[in-house]
């Protein structure tokens, strides 16, 4: 095998590291994206028996966004195994306790339940904020594109932009400004 071919072999089977910013992202939509990178589905060499999955570092998991009233309607079920040991935790209660748990469970449930699933989950690193250990961050070579745009708050827009922005609504002539 020539030197160039050997390098190509290494490059094909090397694990690459991806970073994903969860800020204002729906965890259940982004789980389907993260899953593809974790399992190696984005590679042409993918095969279920081929260990070609990548590593994903998910940051800012505290700032995930759920749709509509999901924070207070979505419940997470747990059973201790004892009689009367069932419990239902709402999404906002779970997020208060552990801000990484919702995205972790979303990715776990997005994958098919087989023997590989728990090993694939070991390659997912979730951090609640932007503080990532240096030895993790120096491996990262790729950024996964966010699905949803991060919205801009009105108080973060400068005042002259707000004033000179084109208007659609004008006040009627007899309106008292409030």
């Amino acid at each position: 095998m020539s030197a160039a071919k050997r390098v190509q072999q290494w490059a094909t089977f090397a694990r690459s590291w991806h970073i994903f910013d969860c800020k204002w992202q729906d965890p259940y939509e982004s789980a389907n994206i993260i899953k593809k990178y974790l399992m190696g589905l984005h590679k042409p060499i993918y095969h279920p028996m081929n260990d070609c999955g990548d590593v994903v570092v998910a940051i800012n998991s505290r700032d995930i966004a759920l749709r509509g009233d999901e924070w207070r309607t979505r419940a997470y079920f747990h059973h201790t195994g004892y009689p009367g040991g069932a419990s239902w935790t709402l999404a906002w209660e779970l997020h208060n306790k552990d801000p990484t748990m919702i995205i972790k469970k979303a990715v776990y449930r997005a994958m098919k339940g087989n023997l590989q699933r728990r090993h694939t989950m070991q390659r997912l690193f979730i951090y609640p904020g932007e503080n990532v250990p240096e030895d993790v961050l120096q491996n990262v070579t790729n950024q996964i594109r966010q699905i949803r745009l991060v919205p801009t708050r009105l108080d973060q827009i400068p005042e002259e932009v707000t004033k000179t922005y084109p208007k659609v609504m004008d006040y009627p002539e007899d309106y008292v400004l409030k």
Partner: protein
Amino acid sequence: MAGLVRAGFSFAKTAIFSTSVRSIATTNPLHLREIHERVEGSTKIIEAVNVPSPRTELLIRAENLPTQDAAASTSEKPCYMCALGLDVKHTDVLIVSQFVRSDGCMLPRRITGLCRRQQKKMGKLVAMAQKAGLMINLTPSYCKKDPKKRKDHKKFNTYFDERTIFMKKIPKPVDKFKR
């Protein structure tokens, strides 16, 4: 006959209402105003000052756009938002914030001049933007401005789907979670 009755009714209405209003007003009643409060010595003076509308120069109307043709002379004239045909999202705070008072409340239809459907839509978009904490400088004084300081489930980020505005029943999101 019906036209005669309507003309008589409108004549009676103008005779009753406009005259009574005109007799009360001491200044020109039709003007955009601002309420000013100041204290001079022991007296508090509250006056309404006529101001020009700050928006008139920046106004966008469909009939003034160069791409629009003068073919819109049909029976029903659409309101200005329908004529513009904008796809407004609740994250477009620069547009949504034009329809609210300074305390973040939606303006009524007699002031916005929208049709019923657009008024409903803009009202829902305002509610969505306020719940998502995107217009925290347009809130009542007692409101906790920072969304992260709100209670329970309100302190976390929430996004909304604009397609659900006119739905009777909002469908559950599709993911593999059993609910």
